[in-house]
């Protein structure tokens, strides 16, 4: 019991440290990419090419005074950042990192993930309400309204994947999308056909690569992927859906009263959320930790870039592919932020309720039909 607890604590510490590292890299990348897109240089002073800039920012935030407004609801105010960060961090528990490493191999993986990340909303309301500041409350309301709305198309897009894969376990979904499928307990006799259609009769179980990714197994999942990706932008409050932030009216939205460590926690949660939704997109749609390179005849690209299940090679390749695909999506998030102007509140809701939800409902139906053709 004690041993288990200690192992879990060490794993948690490692996980947070790793997450912090990724967030630092992403914030640095965000500043550099923004600068390059706008023909600027970005940070250059702290370390070579400014690579220490984000680290210095964290160090600065941690040194700052922890201010709690006199009229704030102190308990809500103090616990909100912790709740928000904990909700996002808990989501990482079911993300498969490699074929043999997953923090928690829960059978209800994706269901748990959607549920726990929704807790975020309560944290946002706590932060907005606890600040006792009208701008913070307005920012929190906008943020929550947007997140709750966009959870529906995101959830429906996920549901269509679940209907294709017939499982909630993210590790099983990952195995289904590559050449290692027969090595997963319970999937030994499964066969992947091209586009998932048995009628086509092209067996791609041993071809692997991108041909077994979910967006190819069921081509209409590409639409689900795009919708999930856009909804996830809204869930992270990223541009072009960053209406909770508005310099001229709401200042920074729900976290306007936060400073020092608490602000750092909110900031960390925001960027962790970005990383999390990118990882979920990759796991659900883009082949998880599977290689994108297929076996072509005797050129066993997929075998070479997958390694052996359970061995070092398998773990390293898996982590490499997962993180590379997630980085591409993260870059896209940043790229979109510095390209598009943001949507108005009514446009935001229009996009969600009148466009995405009908499309995703149709996709769920189509996924059900497709599943019938797959077996």
């Amino acid at each position, binding site marked *: 019991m004690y041993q288990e607890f200690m192992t879990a604590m060490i794993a948690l510490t490692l996980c947070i440290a790793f997450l912090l590292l990724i967030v630092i890299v992403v914030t640095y990348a965000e500043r550099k990419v923004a*600068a390059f897109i706008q*023909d*600027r240089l970005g940070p250059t002073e702290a370390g070579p090419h400014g690579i220490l800039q984000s680290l210095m920012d964290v160090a600065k935030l941690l040194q700052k005074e922890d201010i709690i407004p006199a009229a704030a609801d102190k308990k809500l105010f103090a616990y909100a950042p912790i709740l928000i960060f904990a909700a996002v961090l808990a989501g990482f528990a079911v993300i498969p990192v490699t074929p043999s490493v997953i923090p928690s191999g829960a059978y209800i993986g994706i269901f748990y993930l959607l549920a726990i990340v929704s807790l975020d909303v309560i944290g946002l309301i706590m932060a907005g309400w606890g600040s006792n500041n009208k701008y913070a409350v307005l920012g929190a309301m906008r943020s929550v309204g947007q997140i709750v709305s966009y959870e529906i198309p995101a959830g429906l897009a996920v549901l269509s994947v679940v209907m294709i894969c017939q499982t909630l376990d993210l590790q099983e979904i990952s195995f289904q999308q590559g050449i290692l499928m027969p090595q997963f307990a319970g999937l030994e006799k499964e066969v992947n056909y091209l586009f998932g259609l048995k009628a086509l009769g092209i067996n791609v179980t041993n071809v692997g690569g991108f041909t077994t990714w979910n967006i190819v197994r069921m081509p209409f999942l590409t639409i689900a992927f795009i919708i999930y990706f856009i909804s996830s932008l809204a869930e992270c409050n990223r541009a072009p859906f960053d209406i909770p932030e508005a310099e001229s009216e709401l200042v920074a939205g729900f976290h306007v009263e936060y400073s020092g460590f608490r602000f750092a926690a909110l900031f960390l949660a925001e960027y962790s959320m970005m990383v999390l939704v990118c990882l979920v997109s990759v796991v659900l749609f883009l082949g998880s930790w599977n290689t994108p390179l297929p076996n072509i005849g005797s050129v066993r690209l997929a075998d070479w870039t997958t390694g052996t299940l359970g061995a070092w090679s398998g773990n390293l390749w898996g982590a490499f592919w997962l993180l590379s695909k997630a980085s591409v999506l993260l870059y896209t998030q940043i790229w979109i932020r*510095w*390209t*598009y102007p943001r949507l108005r509140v009514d446009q935001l809701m229009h996009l969600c309720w009148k466009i995405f939800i009908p499309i995703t409902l149709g996709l769920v139906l189509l996924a059900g039909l497709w599943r019938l053709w797959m077996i």
Partner: protein
Amino acid sequence: MKEITANKYNNSFFSVVSALLSGLKLTFKHFLGATKRREPTYVDDKNYFNQTDGLVTLTYPYESIPVPDVGRYRLHNEIDDCIVCDLCAKICPVNCIEIEAIKATEDIGITSDGTKKRLYAGVFNIDMAKCCFCGLCTAVCPTDCLTMTKVYDFPEEDVKNIIYHFSDLTPEQAKEKQALYDKQQAENAAAKAAALAAKQQGSK
């Protein structure tokens, strides 16, 4: 009468998507161009107006665009050529030049353009914090000793240091010169008085 439609853009799905994609294409082109940098070249360089892509940021203290050799920025007074005529101080619209002239007891030399110098500059201060860089003082200067230079980066930590002292006399030397002049004046006055007294005595 022309019909006014509420929607002047083509809002069909494909035109919106292609507009969105062309936006992404544009920013990505700039992202890829980030390997290039604008060169800090002088304005008469052939490429000055041709550097249309790449990063435009100038990391100023480390690099800077050259300014003309005849740039009109910080003032400089060549005190050896200055005849302390006070014209610059009089024309200055913001009164940033402070001059206290001391009359010399004898000729103290000539300037490089041959003008005789008869005055010491006890104080010749220019407060560059007040200066408005209009250049009037350099225009009126009869010996062209007051000029504007191409130096434009001269911030100071202490505001006192932004006042430039151009006088070649220390305050002690200035006091000495003043004393010499006063003494000469007194001697002259005494001699005059003596001469007057002798004249009056002679006429009696």
